[in-house]
């Protein structure tokens, strides 16, 4: 689906659903350099279970036009405008990595819009090392190599994908290679600059962390959950940062238990 927002085209996935007019909405927010395709399986699941799915490509990502937004707060405010345009208040927010920061910021800045939230691969702050930032600033492929390799556990790098015939490391590389120049650096710089303290959660929050996550270590996710208070933590055994690719079934089951309970 597509719509217009701020005079730019916004594409969003719906999970191929046909929701009832009063269906609750679940919003999926992708990570740095990614797009809505990373949510294909949970989007299709929750759509089949009657939820309205809104999985946007952030500006300049995937099939959405425009320039990349320069801060996590700017992404949260842009998303609030999209939610306001597309659905009624009381949404369930789900974000991965940079999308988890956007979800946290969205919940802090627009609490009236949110009913529940889930943070996958979260860390706050989310510092990005100079080698990765500098390579991304130069649009050098080494930035993709670093992020993609560090986003997978050792097992994930070799394969053993749950998805028949899919090689997740190469898939992650191709997805990042689709970005336009400058987009990845803008995303990483926004993550690196995020300094808003984590405040007690106003809504029930789920934190999913990967035991083998090298990008946002599990202990950072646990720390976020403790600061939020009103939250539960699930640590996926042996899972890297690219948890939607490495353990899609475990992520889905954990989300379903929390969201459909």
């Amino acid at each position, binding site marked *: 689906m597509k719509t217009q927002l701020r005079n730019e085209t916004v594409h969003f996935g719906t999970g*191929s659903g046909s929701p009832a007019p009063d269906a609750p909405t679940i919003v999926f927010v992708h990570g740095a350099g990614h797009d809505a395709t990373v949510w294909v399986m949970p989007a299709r699941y929750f759509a089949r279970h009657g939820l309205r799915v809104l999985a946007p490509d952030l500006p300049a990502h995937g099939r959405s036009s425009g320039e990349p937004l320069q801060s996590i707060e700017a992404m949260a405010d842009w998303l609030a405008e999209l939610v306001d345009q597309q659905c009624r208040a009381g949404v369930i927010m789900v974000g991965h990595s940079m999308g988890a920061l956007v979800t946290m910021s969205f919940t802090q800045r627009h609490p009236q819009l949110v009913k529940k939230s889930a943070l996958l691969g979260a860390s706050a702050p989310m510092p990005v090392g100079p080698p990765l930032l500098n390579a991304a600033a130069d649009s050098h492929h080494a930035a993709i190599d670093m992020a993609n390799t560090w986003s997978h556990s050792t097992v994930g790098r070799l394969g053993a994908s*749950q998805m028949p*015939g899919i*090689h997740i490391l*190469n898939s992650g590389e191709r997805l990042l290679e*689709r970005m336009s120049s400058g987009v990845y650096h803008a995303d990483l710089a926004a993550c690196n600059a995020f300094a808003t303290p984590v405040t007690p959660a106003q809504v029930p929050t789920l934190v999913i962390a990967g035991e083998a996550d090298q990008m946002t270590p599990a202990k950072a996710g646990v720390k976020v959950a403790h600061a939020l208070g009103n939250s539960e933590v699930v640590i996926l055994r042996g899972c890297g940062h690219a948890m939607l690719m490495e353990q899609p*079934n475990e992520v889905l089951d954990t989300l379903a238990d929390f969201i459909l309970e």
Partner: protein
Amino acid sequence: MSDGDHRGPAAPGFDTLALHAGQSPDPTTGARATPIYQSASFVFPDSDYAAGLFNIERAGHVYSRLSNPTNAVLEERMAALDRGVGAIVTASGQAAAHLGIATLLGANDHIVSSRSLYGGTHNLLEYTLKRFGITTTFVDPRDPSAFEQAIRPNTKLLFGEIVGNPGLEVLDIPRVADVAHRHGLPLMVDATLVTPYLCQPIVLGADIVMHSATKFLSGHGIVIGGVLIDGGTFDWEGSGRFPTLTEPYDGFHNLVFAEEFGPQAFITRARKEGIRDFGACMAPMTAFQILQGLETLPLRMQKHVSNTAKVVAYLDEHPLVERVVYPGLPSHPDFELAQSLLPQGAGAVFTFSLKGGREAGRMFIESLELFSHLANIGDAKSLVIHPASTTHHRMDAASLKAAGIDEGMVRVSVGLEDAADLIADLKKALRVVERAQ
């Protein structure tokens, strides 16, 4: 900061991937080797889980025509070795070619193909697909501009073998891929003769790769199989020529593959439609046997190439031999290109022509004892065949000439025996021909 100042972490190496990609020890039994999941179907824990598998909400297996855990290891390993996003194993190399074509093309569509092809592929393109409304224009594989000139408004695919069979022309993948991409078309390459050890076409610019896994990938000559690999590189939406990937699919609740699956659009459609509906799937036992061969692919290809160099050098100097055609020889027109695209070797298949034409060729083949006379290549054992009367017998004289096949040509697939023993067998057979002349 200059480009050279950035260094990414090293990805797992080729030899490691050949052994480990796609598989970790079985979580239930601890089995280190890939288990053979000889089961037609797989139990659903509940009906919602089942619905999720069918609706692509969950990862897993339903029915072994669609996917199987043993096959999935081979698929993932081949995707890893060929640098693709995913793969599907098939009943044969021909099934892989058909699956790739049928996923993208329909009636009234057109292919531009190299004319130097395996006979079965030539037949598929020239005769069989024509009955279904798909036509092909064959061009000189050495001339990228010929590919470009043959492109029509209804062209959907460029196709070629990286090393032609049996002409051994080397396809200039970067240049042909450039032609394809400038016209919004994907390039599909048959890389059977080289395997990903000698060449990774996706890295060179191809978008889709296929192999007959019966050959060097297996190495043992005991199974028939194929594999289709999606590079995940082609911009289907940007091209605007591929409604099977960019428009709602009636056969799957109006799913738009490019929109929902991004870089995996092609391979997902191939699985959800082609392998489901045409059904040319691989048996799990076959996948297991190919995996056993694949584990030693790097070692075998090194020996294949080094043996070939010795055998070719011997024949090239022999007075009864009219010509040897092998891209690793400086006399081959594509020698420089082969050095660039195939730096670790131009494979282990070559042809040569004996003075004395068809009768000399027949006598030579029938006098060999260590080489086996049969219709295959890529076995661990050395093989020979006479293409004009066997693999390419359906081609008329003009097509044979265009494909670089003469009446006395012998095709050789060099195996892993001691090179000295192979040369001794050749020497003995050549002596028989010499005496007869």
